[in-house]
């Protein structure tokens, strides 16, 4: 064996080591919130279905790259921003108010920035936030909160909604006692009737309604300010790996498609991943649900975020935020192009529940047989009555608010019986007004069911 023959394996081994040493590992760390439904399409769904891994680039400069993807779950957006500042997270998924804090806090530094690169979903009118009272409370509207104790997680989107709602009602801060409370403790206080009302973000109000402890008296849709969530990324990361940022948006898009394709299967799995009851998740993710899944960045969203920033400036002396610098459509547009979708069309599309849900059927979630649909409220009530007579267990029933088109739990809606049949309402004052105009009668769920026997 000559020297050249001897050297071949040695050179081969060294080359292998050299290649190994050259292979870059890209760390992708994402902060998400498993207790905030509107973040799921950029959070838990992408994580569990490994959609990011599916879309990560593997060619060109990424050919020899290895990815280290990690997910961290948080109870609110605040700590996600802190972890992004320390570069422990590259991406963050959060609601509108925390998003603004994120952008403003980064812009307050000398050298660090984030970019708002995509939405996850929205409710055009602001549903998702709500004010809830104990289920048997005699409070039925926001006007009834004068002189009452109201708790809310200060700094959250629900807090912004509460301030706006109170201002719109003509209440000053002296007219009610604002208390700061976490979602979990607020929900517990509502169950124990320790507080007059509690305002919270998605899905806490529906969670309280589903568990039978709370009743909504005010929905975020009444503020008329859209409620949205989105994705931010550290600018240095996005500049270095723009294709990874684009891949993330593609994963968000596919997560939305996956939910829309089979919402029942989706909420069943999401319940397992997050611990939030599937019947509650269904009110968000089903057809006609509160959440419109949409990664596009619409001018209306920027207006809404600017409005929210104004609220925060007044309340917390938050730093200024240059929206032109912070918001970029570069990655979401690239994602749509790669996926062969029309960004322009989807950006221009806007779902208004009042119009979109007008002709949707009512639904019953039977514990064994799944979900069945009913064209009218009368059909729904008759079906519920029939199921009750057989002793069947019903997980939930769903109707729509005549005023806003919002999907509601049948058991918490107000029913108005007129000559032309039933209509359902979220708020009692709306039901009362409709009943007065149509010479109808307002009743609750059980009373509406009782009319079948009369």
């Amino acid at each position, binding site marked *: 064996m000559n020297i050249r023959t001897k050297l071949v394996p040695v050179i081969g081994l060294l080359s292998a080591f050299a290649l190994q040493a050259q292979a870059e590992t890209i760390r992708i760390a994402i902060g998400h919130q498993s207790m905030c439904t509107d973040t799921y399409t950029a959070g838990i769904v992408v994580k569990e279905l490994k959609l990011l891994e599916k879309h990560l680039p593997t060619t060109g400069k990424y050919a020899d790259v290895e990815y280290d993807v990690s997910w961290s779950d948080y*109870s609110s957006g605040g*700590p996600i921003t802190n972890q992004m500042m*320390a570069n422990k997270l590259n991406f963050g998924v959060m609601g509108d108010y925390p998003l603004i804090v994120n952008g403003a806090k980064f812009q307050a*530094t000398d050298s*660090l920035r984030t970019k708002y690169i995509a939405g996850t979903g929205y409710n055009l009118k602001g549903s998702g936030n709500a004010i809830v009272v104990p289920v048997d409370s005699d409070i039925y509207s926001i006007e009834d909160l004068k002189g009452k104790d109201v708790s809310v997680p200060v700094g959250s989107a629900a807090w912004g909604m509460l301030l706006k709602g109170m201002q719109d009602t003509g209440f000053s801060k002296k007219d009610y006692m604002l208390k*700061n*409370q*976490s979602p*979990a403790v607020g929900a517990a206080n509502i169950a124990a009737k320790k507080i007059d009302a509690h305002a919270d973000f998605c899905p806490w109000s529906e969670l309280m309604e589903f568990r039978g402890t709370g009743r909504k008296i005010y929905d975020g849709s009444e503020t008329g300010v859209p409620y949205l969530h989105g994705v931010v990324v550290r600018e240095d990361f996005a500049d270095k790996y723009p294709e990874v940022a684009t891949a993330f948006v593609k994963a968000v898009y596919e997560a939305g498609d996956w939910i829309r394709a089979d919402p029942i299967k989706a909420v069943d799995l999401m319940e397992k991943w997050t*611990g939030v009851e599937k019947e509650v998740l269904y009110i968000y993710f089903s057809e006609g649900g509160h959440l419109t899944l949409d990664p596009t960045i619409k001018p209306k969203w920027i207006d809404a975020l600017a409005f929210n920033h104004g609220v925060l400036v007044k309340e917390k002396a938050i730093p200024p935020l240059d929206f032109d610098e912070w918001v970029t459509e570069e990655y979401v547009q690239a994602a749509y192009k790669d996926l062969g979708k029309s960004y322009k069309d989807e950006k221009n599309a806007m779902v208004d529940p009042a119009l979109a849900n007008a002709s949707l059927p009512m639904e019953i979630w039977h514990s064994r047989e799944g979900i069945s649909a009913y064209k009218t409220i009368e059909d729904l009530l008759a079906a519920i009555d029939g199921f009750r007579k057989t002793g069947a267990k019903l997980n939930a029933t769903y109707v729509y608010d005549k005023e806003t088109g919002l999907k509601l739990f049948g058991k918490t809606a107000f029913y108005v019986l007129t000559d032309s049949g039933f209509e359902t309402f979220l708020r009692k004052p709306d039901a009362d007004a409709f009943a007065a105009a149509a010479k109808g009668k307002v009743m609750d769920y059980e009373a509406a069911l009782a009319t079948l026997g009369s």
Partner: protein
Amino acid sequence: MSRIDFIKNTLWQNLLAWLGLAVVFSVLYYLALMMALIIRFEGLPNYLNFHAWAFNIERIWLSTPSWLDMLLIMKDEWLLEIGFMNYDYGTGISEWSLFIAPVKVLGVLLLGILLSANYLLLRNGNRVCSPRATRGAGVATGLGATLVSLASITMSWVVCCSTPTWVVGLAMMGLGVSTSLWLEPVGVWVNIAGYFFLLASLYIAASRATANSRYQVDAHI
């Protein structure tokens, strides 16, 4: 004897007591924070997390171009987190927690060092300054210690955006959360003011001692 010499001599002669008191104070400080959380929220902690502090500091070092940004981010980096996780909803929500951030611990240790130094300078046997100066130094020490203690709090409460900040202490004591969060940026100035009062206290004690010493020396002559 100059003021500096007087301080040096007193502390050198009581070195063990000085450093021992500083360490004991630091430990008591964090125990007091923990007790405050337990009493305020009527529950014991149910989780404990360790964080890779050194690794995280290195990452901040490598990824933050501005020195000022780097230092401000590093100071909040924590090593240990102990708190209460509420499992009633979802996969659990951290209601409250106490964070041990090494940079903040150093700040508390410095507070302990200054406090114990003041104690040693003013205690019977060592004290040579006038009663009036003793009272002045005592007030300055108390004020300084209060300010630094307040601004060194590293507790988090989910209603204060779940991030460890000194204003959680104010919010827990009943100050409105909006007002507390509004005060958050002045924390660094509260800290500086606190240390200033502690140093002023040392100065008062030491300067009086110098005058007395001179008087005593003159009297012997």
